[in-house]
C-alpha cells in the first residue's frame, strides 16, 4: 500500500541499524580494576558468600578489595560469562557448567590442579520431609513406595536435579546386589512417584514449601538453609547418597586479588563460614555451629556409603553424556518413556 514511501523508510532503517549495533558493541567488555572483584555464582551462594566476603575484607589481602556479585541458575551463569559477563571468579553447581566456561577459554584448563580438585563447596543429596517425618522416610527405597509423592527439579533444565537422579541411580546400581537394570527400574519408579518437576531447585523448594508433595529430593545445604529460615520441615540424610561437589575457579583475565579470595574461601576460615551456611567443608577439622542442622551436635553426619561422580560414574564428562545426553541419555530416555497420563 505504500510504494511511494519505501525509500525513506529504508533510509531511516539503514541509518539506524549500524548506529544501534555500534552502541551495543561499545558497552560490553569493559573489565574492572585490580581491587574490584566480580563474583559470578550459582543461586544458593548469595547468602552463603556474604559473610565470607566481609571476613575476607578484614584480612590483609582483602582490605582494599570491593566486590560485585551476580547469582542465578548455574547453567545461566555459565552462559552469561561465556556471553561476556565480566567475572573474576565463577562458582557453579556442577562441573559440566564449568567445562563450558573452560571451553570458551575463559578459565584455565588446569583449574582442577589444587588440593580440592577445583571444588569449593560440598554437600550431599538428602530428603526434605514434613515436620516430624510423618511418613517415616529413611532410605531411597521409601521414596518408591506407593502413594509417596516426590518432588525433584527437572534434570532436563536443572543441574541440581542431575545430582539427585544420579544419587538415586547409584543407590540401586552401586549398592551391594545392585546393577544397571535394577537402577533403571528404580529411577523409573521414582519418577512415577514424582508429582512435580519444576525447572530449578529454587522452584522445587518453593513448590514443596507451599505444601506440595511428601518428599523433596534436595541438597543438604538447601535443606539446612530452609530450616534456618524457620520453615516447618525436617530432612533425612540417607545411609547411602551422592556427594555434591560445586566447582569454583578464577578466570583467565582475573585480577590477582581473585586468587587471594579463592585461597581464603578454601582456607579454614572460609570453609567454617560456608559450613555455618550448611555446606560440608572440603577441609578436615573444620568445626562449625550450623543453625538449621537436623542434629546440631553432629551437623554433617557421616554417610555410610558416599558415592561420588568421579568414582562411581567415571567423572562428569562421561556421566553427563551417558545419563543426560540429548536423545541417547539413560535418564532422558526414561523420562521420554514415562508417558504419564497420556
Amino acid at each position, binding site marked *: 500500500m505504500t510504494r511511494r514511501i519505501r525509500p525513506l523508510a529504508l533510509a531511516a532503517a539503514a541509518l539506524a*541499524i549500524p548506529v544501534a549495533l555500534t552502541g551495543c558493541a561499545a558497552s560490553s567488555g569493559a573489565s574492572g580494576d585490580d581491587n574490584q572483584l566480580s563474583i559470578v555464582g550459582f543461586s544458593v551462594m548469595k547468602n552463603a558468600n556474604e559473610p565470607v566476603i566481609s571476613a575476607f575484607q578484614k584480612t590483609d589481602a582483602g582490605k582494599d578489595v570491593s566486590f560485585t556479585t551476580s547469582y542465578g541458575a548455574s547453567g545461566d551463569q555459565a552462559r552469561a560469562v561465556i556471553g561476556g559477563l565480566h567475572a573474576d571468579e565463577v562458582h557453579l553447581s556442577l562441573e559440566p557448567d564449568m567445562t563450558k566456561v573452560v571451553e570458551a577459554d575463559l578459565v584455565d584448563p588446569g583449574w582442577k590442579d589444587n588440593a580440592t580438585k577445583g571444588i569449593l563447596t560440598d554437600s550431599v543429596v538428602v530428603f526434605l520431609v514434613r515436620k516430624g517425618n510423618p511418613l517415616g522416610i529413611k532410605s531411597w527405597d521409601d521414596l518408591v513406595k506407593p502413594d509417596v509423592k516426590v518432588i525433584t527439579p527437572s534434570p532436563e533444565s536443572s543441574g541440581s536435579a542431575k545430582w539427585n537422579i544420579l544419587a538415586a541411580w547409584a543407590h540401586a546400581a552401586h549398592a551391594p546386589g545392585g546393577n544397571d537394570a535394577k537402577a533403571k527400574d528404580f529411577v523409573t519408579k521414582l519418577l512415577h512417584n514424582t508429582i512435580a518437576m519444576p*525447572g530449578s531447585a529454587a522452584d522445587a523448594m518453593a513448590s514443596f514449601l*507451599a505444601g506440595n508433595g511428601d518428599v523433596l529430593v534436595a541438597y543438604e545445604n538447601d535443606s539446612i538453609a530452609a530450616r534456618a529460615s524457620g520453615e516447618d520441615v525436617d530432612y533425612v540424610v540417607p545411609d547411602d547418597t551422592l556427594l555434591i561437589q560445586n566447582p569454583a575457579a578464577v578466570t583467565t583475565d582475573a585480577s590477582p586479588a581473585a586468587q587471594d579470595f579463592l585461597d581464603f574461601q578454601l582456607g579454614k576460615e572460609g570453609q567454617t563460614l560456608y559450613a555455618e551456611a550448611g555446606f560440608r567443608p572440603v577441609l578436615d577439622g573444620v568445626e562449625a555451629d550450623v543453625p538449621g542442622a537436623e542434629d546440631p551436635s553432629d551437623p554433617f553426619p557421616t554417610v555410610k556409603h558416599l558415592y561420588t561422580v568421579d568414582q562411581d560414574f567415571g567423572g562428569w564428562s562421561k556421566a553427563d553424556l551417558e545419563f543426560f545426553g540429548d536423545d541417547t541419555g539413560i535418564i532422558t530416555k526414561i523420562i521420554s518413556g514415562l508417558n504419564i497420563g*497420556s
Partner: protein
Amino acid sequence: MTSAVLDQDTRAVGRGRPGVRSTLTPGASLGLGIAMTWFSLLVLIPLAAIVATAGQNGWQGYVDTLTNPQTWAAIKLTVGQSLLVTGVNVVMGTMIAWVLVRDRFWGKRLLDLMIDIPFAMPTIVAGLVLLGVYGPDSPLGINVSNTRTSVTLALAFVTLPFIVRTVQPVLAELDADVEEAAASLGAGRLAVLRRIVLPSIIPAVTAGAALSFARAISEYGSLVLLSGSLPFHTEAVSVRVFSFIEGGDRTSAAALATIMLGVALAVIIALDVIQRRVARRG
C-alpha cells in the same frame, strides 16, 4: 509470540483496501520509516534470527522436534489449554465488559481498575499467589496444583484482561438508542443482542481472543510453580523451550519457538476469517 500481538495491532489499524493510493505526507512517511525501523530492530530481526537458528538442522530439525513425544505432548497441552482458555475468555470477558459498561453498582470503579492487575503483576508472582489460594494449603479447600486444571487456571488468570479491555470501549460507544429503537419495533431481547450488539462487538471480541490466545501459548512464569511441569502431563511448551535452552540445545528451542509462531499465526488468521464472515452476515 510478540509478533502475533503486534501483527494483530497493525492489522487492526491498516486493514487493507489494496490498491488504494497512499495518502501519506512526507512527515507521515518519516513517521512510518521510524516505526518500521523500531519494529524491525525489536521484532523482525530477532524473529528472523530465531527462524534462522531453527533452520540450522534443516527440515529434519523440525521433524525431530515435532516427533519427540514429550515435545508433542507439550504442544498439545499448550494449544489445547490456550484454545479452551480463549473460549472461556470470549464468554467471561464479554460478560465482564458488559457489566462494567452497562450496569451501575457499588465498587464498579474499583473492579474496573482491578481488571488490569493480571497485566501488571510479574507472572511468577501470579503463580505464587495462585499456588497459595488453589494449592495444597488452599484456604478455599481447592487444590489444583500439579494438575492440568492448574494450567487452565494460570492461563485464564493472565489472559483475563484482553477481551474485557478490547470489548469495553466498543460497548461504551454503542448507541443505546438503536437498541431501544429495535425493541420498540418489536425485537425481542435476544434478537437485539444477536442483530445489533453482537455484530458491533465481534471484531473487538476476535481481536481480544487473538491477543489472549497468543499470550496463553507463550505463558511461562505463572506455570513454573503451579503446574509442576511434569513431562507428558503438565509440561507446557514454554517450559520445554526452557529445558532445551538449559540443556544447551538452542536449535531445538528455536525450532519449537518457530512452530509455536506458526500456530499463533494460524489461529490469528482463523479468527480474522471468522470475524469477517460474521461481519458480512450481520
